[in-house]
C-alpha cells in the first residue's frame, strides 16, 4: 500500500483516477487469473514505475517548458531551471547506467536498505523509550525523591509522610512535592467487580506534572484532606473500558473498596503515571493527605513509594542532592530514634526520566551500538562494491575524458549515480524500517516503558541516509579523482593493472573486507554470550514444577471507614479463603489448590526484619526474610519438598500455637546450616514468638539471576493479609480455567474481582523477556552481519579472480596444477578473513564488558563462545572463498590468454 500512496502523490490530478482505476481493474483481473501474490507484485511494480515516470514528467514540465505544450510557460530559461534540467538528465543517465548493472545495483541498494532500515528502526525505539523527554511541561525539572539504607545496600526505600512534609516545608528546592502510594482497589457496582491499579497522591500531583484533564477537573487545594477525600480521577483507558466513554460521566459515584467516590475528572489518552506501578498502568487516582485514617498517625515509617517533585526553576540536580543531604543530616540529628546511624539512611533524588527508563537503558544502548555496527558493515560493503565498479569503469571514464569531458563533469556523474543508489536504498530502507519497527514492538517485552509512543524517527532516517550517501559518494568518487593522475592512454589500453585499480585499491578493498569480518565477529560474540546467558537461565531451577500451574490474585478491599471493612476481620478472611479453596479444588481438572499471600516470581515482595530467640537483635536490622502466608496445601500444590520437620496442617489455625516453616536458604544464612526445628523467631517485639516446625526446599521468588532468598512461611489461618493469590495445579491444560476461577470467587463474594490470571510459565517467561528480546535482536544482527561480511569476501575474491584470469592462465600454461591455483586464491581470500577475525577477537574482548550487566552464568571472555564464533566465521569465510577459488582452478589457459 506504500506503492499506492506514492502513486497517488506522483500522479497529476487530471489523470489520477483514470490510472489508479485501470490499475485496480488489472489487479482484479490478474488476481483471478494468476493468484493474489503475482497480482500484488505486478501491481506494485507498475505503481512504482508509474510514479517514477510521472514524477520525472512533472519535473520536466516545471523546469524546461516543454515544446509540446502550446500554452507554454515563458520560454526564458532561468539558470536554475536549466541547471535542474541538466541534473535531471544526469539522474536519467545514472538510472540507465545502474540498470545496465542490475546485480551491482541490487546488492548495493539492498545492503544500504538493510543498514538504514535496521538503524532507523532501532534508533526510533531507543529514542522513544529512552532518549525522548517525558511528555510533561519542563520535564527536566521533574524528580522522584526516595531514600536509601546504605548499610543494607538497599536503594529506593521510599518516603515517610513526615519526610514528605519536611521536603516540602523545610527546603526551598521544590515548587511541589507529591506523595505516591500505589494500591489495589476493587471497583464494584458495575456488571462485574474489577480490580484496578490505583494511586493515592497528594492533591498537587497533577499540578506538579502540569497535566490537564480531558474531562472535568484534576485535584486542587480543596481536595486536600487528612485521610482520603472521596473524589477520583480516572484514566482515558478506564473511562473507555468501564464507563463506556460517556462524556457525561463527571459527578457519577464509583464504589471503590466499598466507599463512594465522586468522579471529578478523566485524563487524556496519552497521560500515564510516570514511574513504577504494581501490575498495570494506573487507572485511578485519588487524593490522600496521609495524616489521618485509614493511614497511621503521621510518622517517619517509610511506607510511601516515594515522592514526585518538581525542582524550582534554576535549581540543578546537584544542588538538590547537596541540600537534601544536608537536610538528611539535620533530620538524623533531630530524630536519632527514627534514623539509627547503623542503617545509613539518606534521602535520594533521581531525575524522573532515569526513574522511568533506567532499567531498560543499558539493553537499549547495547542494541543501538550493535545496530551501528550493522550500518558500518553495510557501508564497508557498499564502499567495496563502489570501488570495484569504479575500477571497472576506468576505461569508460578515460574514453570520456579523452573525448573532452572535464573531471568535474565526470565527478558529477559519479556523484549522481551514488546519490541515486543512496536514495533508492533509503526508500527501501524506510520500508524495512517500518516493518522492523512493527516487529520490534511486537517482540519487545511488555514491561518496556513508553512502547506505545514508538514511531518512525525522521532524524534517525536522515542520519543513516546521510551516512550511506557519504559512503557511496566517497568510494565512488575516490577512484574517479585518482583518474586525473592516471595516464588516460594507459587506461584506455585496458591493461589488467589499470582495470583492477592498482595495488592501492586492492589494499583498500582487502582492508574493508577485514573490517567487515572484524565487526561481524564482535556482533556474533555479543549474540553468542547473550544466547549462552539465556540458556543458563533456562537451566535455573525455580524450586518446583511450573507446568500446569495457574496463578490468580484477589485483593480484599480496605474501606476508609473500618466499620465497612468486612475483611479487616481475620475470621472473615479465613472463611473466605476456606470456601474459595474448596470450590476451586472441586473444579474439573483441578488436582490441588492453595492460597498464598505472594506468588514466586510474581512481583516485588519486600523482606521483613526478624529476630531469633536467644540471639542478640542485630541493631543494623540485617536479619531479613521474605514472608509468605500460605494454606496447608501450598507445598503439595507446588511440589516444594519439606526437607526437615513437618508442613502445615489444618490444626495450625487461629488459637493454636503460632508456627512457622523456613526455607533452606534461611537455614544456611541464619542457622549456619544447623537444625532450626524447635527454635523460635519473631517479627517484632510486640508480636508473638513463632515456633519453627519445618524446613522447606528453596524457591526463587524474585529473579532467576539471584540466589534463592530466605523465606518465612506462616499458616494463612494464623496470619493473613488483604492480598491473596490462588495457586491451582491441574492434571493438564484446562481451557477456560481462568474464567472458572473468577466465577467461583464471585460465588463466594460477588464484589471480589480476580485479576492477574497467569500461568506460572508465563510469569517465568516475563522474568526473562528482556534478555530474550535482546538476544533475539542481537542474533538477528549477527546473522545480517555475517551475511554481509560473506558477501564482501565473495565479492572481493571473485573480482580478483576475474582480474587475474590472465595471470592464472599463464601459471596454468607453465605447469601450475589446479590444486596450486586453488591454494593461491584460498590463501589470498583467507588472509583477509583471518586478519579480520584477529581484529574482531581483540575488539570483542574490549567490548564484551559493556554487556556484562546483561550476562548470566557466563564470563564476558567465554572461551567456548569465542571459539564457536571464530569457527563459524572461518567455515563461512572458507565457503565464500571456495566458490571463486574453484572457478580459478578451472581456468582454461588458452581462453584466458585470448582475453588480451
Amino acid at each position, binding site marked *: 500500500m506504500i506503492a499506492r500512496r506514492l502513486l497517488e502523490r506522483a500522479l497529476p490530478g487530471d489523470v489520477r483516477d483514470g490510472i489508479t482505476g*485501470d490499475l485496480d*481493474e488489472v489487479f482484479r483481473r490478474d488476481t483471478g487469473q494468476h493468484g493474489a501474490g503475482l497480482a500484488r507484485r505486478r501491481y506494485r511494480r*507498475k505503481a512504482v514505475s508509474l510514479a517514477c515516470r*510521472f514524477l520525472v*514528467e512533472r519535473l520536466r514540465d516545471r523546469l524546461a517548458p516543454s515544446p509540446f505544450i502550446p500554452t507554454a510557460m515563458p520560454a526564458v530559461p532561468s539558470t536554475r531551471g536549466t541547471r535542474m534540467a541538466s541534473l535531471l538528465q544526469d539522474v536519467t543517465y545514472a538510472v540507465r547506467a545502474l540498470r545496465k548493472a542490475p546485480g551491482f545495483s541490487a546488492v548495493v541498494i539492498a545492503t544500504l536498505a538493510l543498514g538504514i532500515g535496521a538503524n532507523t528502526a532501532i534508533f526510533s525505539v531507543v529514542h522513544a523509550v529512552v532518549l525522548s523527554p517525558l511528555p510533561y511541561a519542563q520535564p527536566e525539572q521533574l524528580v522522584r525523591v526516595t531514600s536509601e539504607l546504605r548499610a543494607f545496600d538497599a536503594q529506593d526505600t521510599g518516603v515517610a509522610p513526615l519526610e514528605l512534609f519536611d521536603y516540602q516545608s523545610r527546603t526551598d528546592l521544590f515548587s511541589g512535592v507529591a506523595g505516591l502510594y500505589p494500591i489495589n482497589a476493587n471497583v464494584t457496582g458495575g456488571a462485574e467487580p474489577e480490580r484496578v491499579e490505583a494511586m493515592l497522591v497528594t492533591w498537587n500531583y497533577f499540578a506538579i506534572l502540569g497535566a490537564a484533564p480531558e474531562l472535568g477537573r484534576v485535584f486542587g487545594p480543596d481536595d486536600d484532606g487528612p485521610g482520603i477525600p472521596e473524589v477520583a480521577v480516572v484514566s482515558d483507558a478506564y473511562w473507555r473500558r468501564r464507563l463506556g466513554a460517556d462524556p457525561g460521566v463527571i459527578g457519577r459515584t464509583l464504589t471503590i473498596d466499598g466507599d463512594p467516590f465522586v468522579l471529578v475528572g478523566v485524563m487524556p489518552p496519552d497521560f500515564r503515571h510516570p514511574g513504577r506501578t504494581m501490575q498495570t498502568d494506573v487507572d485511578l487516582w485519588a487524593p490522600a493527605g496521609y495524616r489521618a485514617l485509614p493511614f497511621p498517625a503521621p510518622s517517619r515509617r517509610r511506607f510511601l513509594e516515594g515522592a514526585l517533585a518538581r525542582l524550582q526553576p534554576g535549581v540543578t540536580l546537584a544542588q538538590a542532592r547537596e541540600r537534601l543531604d544536608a537536610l538528611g543530616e539535620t533530620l538524623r540529628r533531630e530524630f536519632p530514634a527514627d534514623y539509627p546511624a547503623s542503617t545509613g539512611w539518606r534521602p535520594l533524588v533521581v531525575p524522573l526520566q532515569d526513574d522511568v527508563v533506567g532499567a531498560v537503558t543499558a539493553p537499549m544502548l547495547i542494541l543501538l551500538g550493535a545496530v551501528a555496527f550493522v550500518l558500518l558493515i553495510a557501508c564497508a560493503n557498499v564502499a567495496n562494491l563502489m570501488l570495484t565498479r569504479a575500477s571497472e569503469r576506468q576505461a569508460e571514464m578515460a574514453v570520456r575524458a579523452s573525448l573532452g569531458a572535464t573531471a568535474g563533469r565526470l565527478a558529477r556523474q559519479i556523484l549522481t549515480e551514488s546519490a541515486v543508489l543512496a536514495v533508492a536504498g533509503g526508500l527501501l530502507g524506510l520500508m524495512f524500517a517500518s516493518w522492523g519497527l512493527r516487529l520490534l514492538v511486537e517482540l519487545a517485552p511488555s514491561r518496556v516503558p513508553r512502547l506505545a509512543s514508538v514511531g518512525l524517527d525522521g532524524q534517525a532516517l536522515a542520519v543513516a541516509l546521510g551516512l550511506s550517501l557519504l559512503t557511496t559518494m566517497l568510494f565512488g568518487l575516490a577512484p574517479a579523482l585518482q583518474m586525473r593522475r592516471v595516464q588516460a592512454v594507459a587506461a584506455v589500453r585496458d591493461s589488467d593493472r589499470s582495470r583492477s585499480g592498482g595495488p592501492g585499491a586492492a589494499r583498500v578493498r582487502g582492508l574493508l573486507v577485514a573490517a567487515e569480518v572484524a565487526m561481524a565477529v564482535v556482533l556474533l560474540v555479543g549474540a553468542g554470550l547473550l544466547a549462552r546467558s539465556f540458556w543458563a537461565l533456562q537451566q535455573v531451577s525455580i524450586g518446583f514444577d511450573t507446568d500446569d500451574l495457574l496463578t490468580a490474585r484477589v485483593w480484599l478491599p480496605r474501606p476508609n471507614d473500618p466499620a465497612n471493612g468486612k475483611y479487616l476481620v481475620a475470621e472473615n478472611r479465613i472463611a473466605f479463603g476456606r470456601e474459595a479453596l474448596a470450590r476451586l479444588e472441586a473444579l474439573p481438572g483441578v488436582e490441588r489448590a492453595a492460597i498464598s499471600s505472594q506468588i514466586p516470581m510474581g512481583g516485588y515482595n519486600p523482606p521483613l526484619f526478624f529476630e531469633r530467640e536467644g540471639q542478640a537483635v542485630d541493631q543494623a536490622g540485617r536479619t531479613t526474610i521474605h514472608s509468605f502466608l500460605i494454606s496447608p496445601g501450598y507445598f503439595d500444590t507446588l511440589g516444594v519438598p519439606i526437607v526437615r520437620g513437618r508442613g502445615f496442617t489444618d490444626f495450625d489455625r487461629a488459637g493454636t500455637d503460632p508456627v512457622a516453616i523456613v526455607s533452606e536458604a534461611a537455614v544456611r544464612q541464619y542457622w549456619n546450616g544447623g537444625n532450626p526445628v524447635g527454635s523460635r523467631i519473631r517479627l517484632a517485639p510486640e508480636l508473638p514468638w513463632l515456633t519453627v516446625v519445618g524446613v522447606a526446599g528453596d524457591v526463587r521468588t524474585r529473579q532467576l539471576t539471584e540466589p534463592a532468598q530466605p523465606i518465612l512461611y506462616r499458616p494463612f489461618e494464623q496470619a493473613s493479609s488483604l492480598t491473596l493469590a490462588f495457586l491451582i495445579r491441574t492434571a493438564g491444560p484446562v481451557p477456560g480455567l481462568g474464567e472458572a476461577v473468577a466465577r467461583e470467587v464471585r460465588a463466594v463474594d460477588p464484589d471480589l474481582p480476580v485479576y492477574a490470571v497467569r500461568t506460572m510459565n508465563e510469569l517465568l517467561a516475563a522474568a526473562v523477556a528482556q534478555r530474550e528480546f535482546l538476544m533475539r535482536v542481537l542474533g538477528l544482527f549477527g546473522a545480517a552481519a555475517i551475511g554481509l561480511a560473506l558477501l564482501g569476501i565473495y565479492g572481493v575474491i571473485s573480482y580478483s579472480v576475474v582480474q587475474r584470469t590472465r595471470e592464472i592462465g599463464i601459471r596454468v600454461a607453465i605447469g601450475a596444477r589446479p590444486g596450486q591455483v586453488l591454494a593461491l586464491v584460498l590463501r589470498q581470500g583467507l588472509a583477509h578473513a583471518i586478519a579480520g577475525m584477529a581484529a574482531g577477537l581483540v575488539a570483542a574482548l574490549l567490548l564484551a564488558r559493556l554487556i556484562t550487566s546483561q550476562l548470566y552464568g557466563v564470563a564476558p571472555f567465554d572461551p567456548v563462545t569465542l571459539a564457536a564464533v571464530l569457527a563459524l566465521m572461518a567455515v563461512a569465510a572458507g565457503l565464500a572463498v571456495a566458490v571463486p577459488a574453484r572457478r580459478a582452478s578451472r581456468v582454461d589457459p588458452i581462453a584466458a590468454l585470448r582475453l588480451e
Partner: protein
Amino acid sequence: MTRESLGEFEQLVLLAILQLGDDVYGVPIVDEIERRTGRSVAPAAVYVTLRRLEQKGLLSSWMSDPTPERGGKARRCVRVTAAGRASLRESRDVIDQMWKGLDRGLRGSR
C-alpha cells in the same frame, strides 16, 4: 508553426486506439499493443504518452461512469482527434517516402 513528428511509440498508441474503436482506455490499449507487436509494454510508458498526446491536442479524453470493479473509479476514455489522424497520416507518408524503392532489396538481405 512546425509540426512535431510523432515518435514510434506515440504512433503505436494512436494506432492502437484507432484499432480498438469505441470505449478505449488504458487497459485495452496496453493489451492491444502487446497483442499486435508481441512485445511487453510498460503501462507507465503508455500513460505518459497518452497524457503527452492529449497535451499536443492529438487526443481528447473524457471520464466514463464509475464502475465497482474499478474501486468506484471512472474510466478515462480517449479518442483520436482530427489533428491526431492528420499527424499519423503525415508520419506514415514520411516513412513511405523513405521506404520507396527499398522494399525488394531489404527483403532479399534478410
